[in-house]
């Protein structure tokens, strides 16, 4: 039985591209569907159009030819073609080499157009990626909010504690001042008594000169201690003042630096000295609570960086503020190990941290970025210092900007 007529009909009428080319790729036969798919006419075929011009990347044709040469056939190879009007076509190609009676090698093959199927799959893939990215952004936003909520709670707590400490501190300071005055009077009275009367018979009277002079020092020290407590509670109250983070007002950045240094003292006082270079700057129009948070993160990070060196020598943290053409610049430079180039691009990414486990959440710098760049339209960046250490810098636009 001769099936050739049936196959011939199939080749001419099916929605699969059938072709025959000679060894150099010149198209000798292309069925109707193939002509329609590639946008070519029977005249183009008569003119000897070459199949390589329809491959999106001519290299693909060369690859295909080399496989055909070595294996004499190709099976289910994915190819990308471009029609005459530039439409991208993805196909699965099957082909084999057929020798003619004259010994000429012809390539006979078929290409199944899978463009729609591929486009559907790739569209789904694009959607999946976009959904994953959206999910990641949502997760980041949730984490940032959770962190801000945590910081706000801590701030509220700190402000409450500072307020509670301030009340008894007030009367302790007042009593301390009274006690100092009373002791001055007691000292004078005792001096007069000891000049008029012999105190040899009185127990411990010989130690009174030392005790009275020491009490003076003790009270002075107490006074210093109380003043320091007052300074810290004032800083805490200013720092942790609760408010709407969208509300902006004029803000004294230099005072905020001093307050933050007071609060963060425990983080750096055993490992680094602070060098301050606070310039004359105008008030900054910003949300003070958020900027306090940035200052705290950057200063604590500087201390942690120096601590990471593990050196017995004390490090240095240099803090500068300045004003330039209306914008305000803040920088903090530490004498730590600096930042490796390989991780520099990730510094402001959420959850990225170079700190040891448990020491950093990896949210500090991303929060700083969010506050400075997103909320205040400022800039934040870092640079490695010479001979070592890292400098973090932010600028905030002036009120007019």
């Amino acid at each position, binding site marked *: 039985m001769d099936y050739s007529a049936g196959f011939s009909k199939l080749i001419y009428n099916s929605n699969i591209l059938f072709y025959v080319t000679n060894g150099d790729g010149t198209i000798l036969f292309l069925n109707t569907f193939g002509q329609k798919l590639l946008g070519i006419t029977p005249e183009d075929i008569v003119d000897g159009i070459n199949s390589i011009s329809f491959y*999106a*990347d001519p*290299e693909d044709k060369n*690859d295909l030819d080399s496989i055909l040469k070595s294996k004499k056939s190709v099976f*289910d*190879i*994915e190819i*990308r073609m471009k029609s005459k009007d530039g439409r*991208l076509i*993805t196909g*699965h190609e099957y082909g084999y080499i057929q020798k003619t009676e004259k010994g000429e090698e012809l390539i006979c093959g078929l290409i199944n157009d899978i463009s729609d199927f*591929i486009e559907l*799959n*790739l569209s789904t*893939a*694009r959607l*999946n*990626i976009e*959904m*994953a*990215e959206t*999910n*990641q952004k949502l997760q980041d936003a949730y984490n940032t909010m959770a962190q801000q909520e945590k910081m706000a709670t801590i701030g509220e707590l700190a402000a409450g504690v500072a307020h509670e400490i301030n009340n008894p501190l007030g009367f302790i300071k007042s009593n301390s001042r009274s006690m100092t005055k009373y002791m001055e009077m007691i000292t004078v009275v005792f001096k007069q008594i000891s000049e008029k009367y012999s105190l040899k018979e009185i127990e411990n009277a010989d130690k009174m000169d030392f005790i009275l002079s020491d009490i003076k020092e003790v009270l002075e020290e107490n006074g210093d201690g109380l003043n320091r407590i007052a300074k810290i509670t004032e800083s805490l109250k200013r720092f942790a003042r609760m408010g709407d983070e969208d509300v902006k007002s004029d803000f004294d950045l230099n005072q905020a630096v001093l307050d933050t240094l007071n609060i963060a003292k425990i983080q750096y006082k055993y490992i680094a000295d602070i060098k301050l270079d606070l310039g004359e700057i105008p008030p900054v129009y910003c949300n003070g609570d958020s900027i306090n948070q940035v200052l705290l993160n950057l200063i604590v990070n500087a201390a942690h960086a120096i601590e990471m060196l593990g050196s017995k020598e004390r490090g240095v943290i240099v803090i500068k503020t300045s004003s330039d053409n209306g914008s305000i610049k803040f920088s903090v430079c530490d004498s730590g190990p600096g930042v490796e180039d390989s991780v520099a691009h*990730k510094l402001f990414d959420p*959850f*990225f941290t170079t700190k040891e486990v448990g020491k950093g959440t990896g949210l500090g710098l991303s929060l700083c970025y969010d506050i400075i760049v997103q909320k205040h339209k400022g800039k934040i960046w870092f640079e490695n210092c010479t001979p070592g250490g890292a400098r973090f810098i932010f600028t905030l636009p002036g009120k007019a900007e």
Partner: protein
Amino acid sequence: MADNLTEEIEFDGLFLSIDTTLPNKITVNVKGRLETANSIHFLNFMTELINSSVTGVDLILAMADLYYVSSTGIGAFTTILVNTKKKNIQLYFKDMQPKVLSVLELLGFTAFFKFI
């Protein structure tokens, strides 16, 4: 064979090995051709690797010797990217051949990936 470099395994013309020499980085050397037939093996291999990796590491696909990627292979890349995002793993394509990169460009996927 060094402890931090696995032996190369083959899936129908695709060769894979894992290098963990660099700290916090997992490099998968991908060589040969990523075709319709072996893409599923590649995806299974990568999924297993991602599932067993800790959050926060960098996953680098070193592709200097990868000469062909089919659209199914591109699909595998996108699934790998989605899986890495779920685990907060950063995916990088390293030394991608221009020919393979042009396929990604052609299909509009370059914006989703990071190249080094």
